[in-house]
């Protein structure tokens, strides 16, 4: 069957098998910026935003989200114009191996859209589903707080 998504603002049409999960469809079509392969929604590395909400793409059927807006890490910034969250993760040392980073940043991105002034507890709650074995999370939480600051400074300019 055919599905259409608006991925990072661009319409894309894919041929899929019913029963395939979104993660596999997106990676097969070149979206390797989405990581993860636990297929239980437990590690969070495959997190994408579907109509702005963070979801683990390994547990959602590709057919089910036909027509939806999907945002991957490439949809929020790039090497030349990184999002403040991406800058903050780099600045605070929150990226070690970087495998969980895209999913984690997207969870934080969804949080800041809803809650631009999160407490430490809010941040920890938002990132709870994104497992990281390298950092021990402390610098990730610091990164989100730093991004809040960067976003505010950006607005004041």
């Amino acid at each position: 069957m055919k599905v259409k998504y608006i991925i990072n603002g661009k319409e894309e049409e894919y041929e899929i098998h019913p029963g395939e999960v979104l993660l596999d469809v997106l990676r097969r079509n070149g979206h390797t910026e989405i990581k993860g392969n636990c297929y239980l929604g437990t590690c969070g590395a495959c997190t994408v935003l579907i109509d702005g909400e963070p979801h683990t793409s390994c547990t959602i059927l590709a057919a089910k989200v036909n027509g939806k807006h999907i945002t991957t890490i490439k949809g929020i910034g790039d090497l030349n114009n990184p999002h403040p969250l991406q800058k903050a993760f780099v600045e605070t040392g929150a990226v070690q191996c970087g495998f969980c980073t895209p999913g984690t940043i997207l969870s934080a991105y969804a949080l800041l859209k809803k809650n631009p002034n999160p407490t430490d507890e809010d941040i920890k709650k938002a990132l709870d589903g994104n497992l990281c074995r390298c950092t021990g999370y402390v610098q990730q939480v610091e990164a989100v707080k730093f991004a809040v600051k960067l976003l505010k400074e950006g607005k004041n300019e």
Partner: protein
Amino acid sequence: MSNFKSIGKDTKKIDALSLATGQPMFVDDVSFPDTLQIKLLYSPHAHAIIEDIDTSEAEKYPGVKMVLTYKNTPHVPHTTAGQGWPEPSPYDTWMFNEKVKFVGDRVAAVAAETEEQAAEALKLIKVKYKVLPAILDPEDAMKDGAPVIHDEPWITGAYNPKKNLAAHIDIRVGDVEKGFKESDVVVEETFETQYAQHTPIEPHVTITYLDEYSRLVIRTSTQVPFHVRRIVAQALQIPVQKIRVIKPRIGGGFGTKQEIILEEICSFVTLKTGRPARILYTREEEFISARTRHPFKVKVKIGAKKDGMLHAISLYALSNTGAYGTHGLTVASNAGSKTLPLYNKAENVEFVSDIVYTNMPVAGAYRGYGATQGYAALEQAIDMVAEKLGMDPWELRKKNHIKAGETSPIFRALGEGREGVTQYIQSCALDELLEKGAKEIGWLEKYGRPKRNGSKVRGVGMSIHMQGSGIPLIDMGAATLKMNEDGSFNLLYGGTDIGTGLDTVAAQIVAETLGIKPDQVIVYASDTDLTPFDVGAYASSGTFVSGGAVLKAALKVREQILEVAREKFGEADSKDYILEDGKVISPKSGKSITLSEIAYDTLYVKNQHQIGAAGSFVSPYSPPPFAVHFVEIEVDEETGEIKPIKYVAAVDCGVPINPNLVKGQIIGALVNGIGYALTEEYHFTSSGRMTNPNFMDYKIPSTRDLPEIKVILAETYEPTGPYGAKSVAEININGPIPAIGNALHDALGIRLHRSPYTPERVLEAIRKSKEKKLEPVDPE
């Protein structure tokens, strides 16, 4: 120190922005046309002989290109442990064997056009097993009449396979029996640690293909690219020169990728078919078939004098290496060699270990590498000695720890599976760490005064640790550095950054030495065709060994640059030139020249040559980093739940070349250790099958499990390390089991002898201690 321009600075990790923006940097982010997908079939039995295996139906399945079993693959005994050569691990493994030795052992592989086809074809393989009696308890392995797991005649390098002994260690210093007799108090206890796993979020993945000269290229998620090349060559009996191994970015390792477990299968398929091939472990395969931490049972006996001086220490470690002996000997060695020198005041010391085969998952290298298991026992027993002496355990440790200028006979007696190398400690800030850490946690106010709030009780605990910096006189790294027209440099080195930030540290070392900025160093690493050799990422060797090699190459390049400058300035004998901001400056004459001008001149104009050099580093030194851990916990007597409230890690890793990366290493290891102490463990059925191979049932810490974490860095200068640095990657995983165990004792007066400290075990210990209190007092 303060004059450093690049060392000690929070240089941004050079790959961080590319990773944070989702560039295709990992093994599985790049795909090749016509790649065959490989899936593996695993043994459902802990111990069995394959009497018959029929692959004919699988071979006929659409898309299937080949099926691999012991019948059509090479029978070359080797070890999967990616260690130096000759390996200290036994040659007890074939690619596929007709005898399977644990639930998860490999039986067959299918290579097909798609993953689905490969998975379906696996179901069509008919295997007839003759099930053998299995050993699931390490204590049973050494019993008379126990089934022999490795009864094949070709096994070499194991201590006594007929007794299921993969390895054995026995070292003695002084006379421990006499020492215990002379002691005023003696504590003897046994502590057990559990099966656990590294769980990097990127699983093992390998892609192989033939290049345009028909050479085999292996892109793989490894910590040891050069060992992969050597061991694949061995296992497949092909020349090393036919193989190129490329390590792209790696999604974490922690030891599990110090193993060659997929590369040889993938390579075999590519060599036989001429087509690219890929294997990607699922999370379940990762748990069931990849490597684990060696579970230990450690009997610790410590004798001390009334004044608090330790006099005799004996450790006996029973290590369960599982079905294969990979890293068995060396992990057990480290349980003694990385712990006992810490208490060098004890004159009588022995370390004995049996490393046994069982029909259980295969243990391997895991951050901490035996020291974690050793400290779990030793650092709780130290608290028990203090209790018996009526002393503060903090005071006891202050009296007994090793200091700068001192040595321990253990360094020489116990090396990496063989005799070691004498070490004199040149930098050690333990005294400072003990003071600062105690102050931060409020030790003097809190220890021995548990605070109760309803059913919740708070207590504090501590532990002290050392590790090493690479393996002395074994670990070697090399680097080459060359200059470009714009004053930038290409660094090509074998060092293996698996997410730690080593490539950034390497750039900082070059920048400091040549007076440039770290971003003027183009780092390319870990490609067996293009970079020089390095043993890889293990034994906390990155900054010390690989970084040491980078420094050597950079110093040679510096000298070449100065030589050109002297000639340009007409100052033949000048020795006081300064390299900074991309220039060579002569302070006396005031002359200066940019590196770019030197590069253009030497490449194109005069006395033409490539400014560049290679450096190799191997050292008789392995300077230990030191750490002191303090933790305050809250334990709920009603639920048995332990919650760490505040954790203080005070660490001496020499000069931190990049403090932000150092902090990441410390906290990452610490949180991993907290998981090991509180939740992480394998559960098994009575027939040896793991029942919780997923993140829902195997709980690693997430953001909501974090205590308040405070890192204290006591800066020392280690003269044997690059710019004063020692290692930091492993040491901080060793603290949580003993520190939290000691805090639990401070809170409730109970002690658990087996980790993890789950609510069930805590409640059981509370129940037992209450029963004990109700017993009539012995009228002694």
